[in-house]
């Protein structure tokens, strides 16, 4: 009995409550989004600009560089790494349709292996599987600054329409963004953690910060992600109400 009590005490009740509220709403809204329901989104300048740049690239044949950062898949940085891959997938699919080149760089080898699959599939679905080239994806060692200087070197090779940096970056994000500031290209991207976001925001032309990074799919080409944005918004309201009610009760002496 004592053991059961001890286990019950150790269970993170708060985490369970959040999960039990979040998951049903997530499933409900995602099913609605998949069945065609649309949730109007507030505009985010960086994603709007990215869509414009992709159209521009299709017309002009210029290449967009996507830096996917250094966050490893299999680690807690997986969601940020996935967002870098989402942006790369969007650009790779558009480029593949017009049989144009693309460039993805990363500082993590697990991202490289995932991106290779995305690029191969994009080329195959566009009907040009033979156009897949391993050199369109480049890895520069797992040291963040080695990645930054390596990607910077890749950007010397030819003129690029844009330098898009989205994923898990630390100070190397500022390095790569700022080293390319004198080049004639649009620079945009984003990163979630506050310090890295402050650095990126100071350097790039357009940025997404914090939670906006995880919304990339919904704003680009994955309508199924709209459901998760709607569930995030609902959770946000529940959290705000919890904080407000909790604070009022605490002020009145009903809580700790």
């Amino acid at each position: 009995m004592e053991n059961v009590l001890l286990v019950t005490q150790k269970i993170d009740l708060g985490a369970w409550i959040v999960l039990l509220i979040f998951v049903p709403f997530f499933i409900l809204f995602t099913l609605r989004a998949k069945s065609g329901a649309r949730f109007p989104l507030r505009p985010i300048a960086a994603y709007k600009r990215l869509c414009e740049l992709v159209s521009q690239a299709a017309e002009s044949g210029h290449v967009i560089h996507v830096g996917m950062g250094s966050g490893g898949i299999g680690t807690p940085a997986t969601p940020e790494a996935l967002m870098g891959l989402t942006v790369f997938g969007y650009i790779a699919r558009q480029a593949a349709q017009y049989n144009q080149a693309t460039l993805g760089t990363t500082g993590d080898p697990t991202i490289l292996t995932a991106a290779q699959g995305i690029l191969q599939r994009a080329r195959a679905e566009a009907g040009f599987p033979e156009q897949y080239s391993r050199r369109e994806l480049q890895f520069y060692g797992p040291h963040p600054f080695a990645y930054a200087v390596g990607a910077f070197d890749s950007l010397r090779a030819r003129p690029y329409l844009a330098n898009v940096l989205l994923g898990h970056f630390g100070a190397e994000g500022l390095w790569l963004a700022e080293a390319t500031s004198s080049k004639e290209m649009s620079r945009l991207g984003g990163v979630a953690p506050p310090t890295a976001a402050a650095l990126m925001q100071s350097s790039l032309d357009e940025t997404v910060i914090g939670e906006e990074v995880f919304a990339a799919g919904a704003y680009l080409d994955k309508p199924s992600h709209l459901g998760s944005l709607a569930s995030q918004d609902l959770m946000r309201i529940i959290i705000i109400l919890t904080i407000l009610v909790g604070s009022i009760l605490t002020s009145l002496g009903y809580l700790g």
Partner: protein
Amino acid sequence: MKKTLPLIVAILCGVLSLADFIIPNPQLDALGAVLVEGVTILAAFALLLGLLNILGTHVHRVATGEGSRGLSLSLILAMLITMAVGIAFPHSGTLRWIFRYLYVPLQSTMTALLAFFVVSAAYRAFRLRNIEALILLVTSLLVLFTQLPFVGAISPSLAIIRDWLMRVPVTAATRGLILGIALGTIATSLRILLAVDRPYTGE
């Protein structure tokens, strides 16, 4: 099968590692530890693939003359020598020498370059002349100047303002940002665990 098995494996691994977090159970702890070991091994294999990618890129450049042959050759040699010495003689004086006199100075000077980069980035950001840029400028200058030793002597109230900024508005903003990031992380993870996203299939 090429799509279904990875899907089942991804969901299974995800649910197991999540359960390890939120259900206190020794068996789950052991399974979670095995998964973390597995991820470490897979990341090491992925690194081998990554090293082949670097080698492939630069061997191609040496062969075709794209870029600078000499620089690509120096990269290949630096990589192969470091790796060979590191694997065959991990405790040798040469590896220590490479680490101390090549790796560390290069890495720390790349970091030092950021001092120049951050100043030029901040200058460009402040030139935007909007209200957000103004708030950014005032706060960062205040925090920077109050770190200087003589500022405290000139005006002690500046340090009080800085401490208040850090304790109240900066804490509030960081808290809000972290809560938002947590919401985004949870939603993105759920998309993988509930198979809305299947990036392992190249989707």
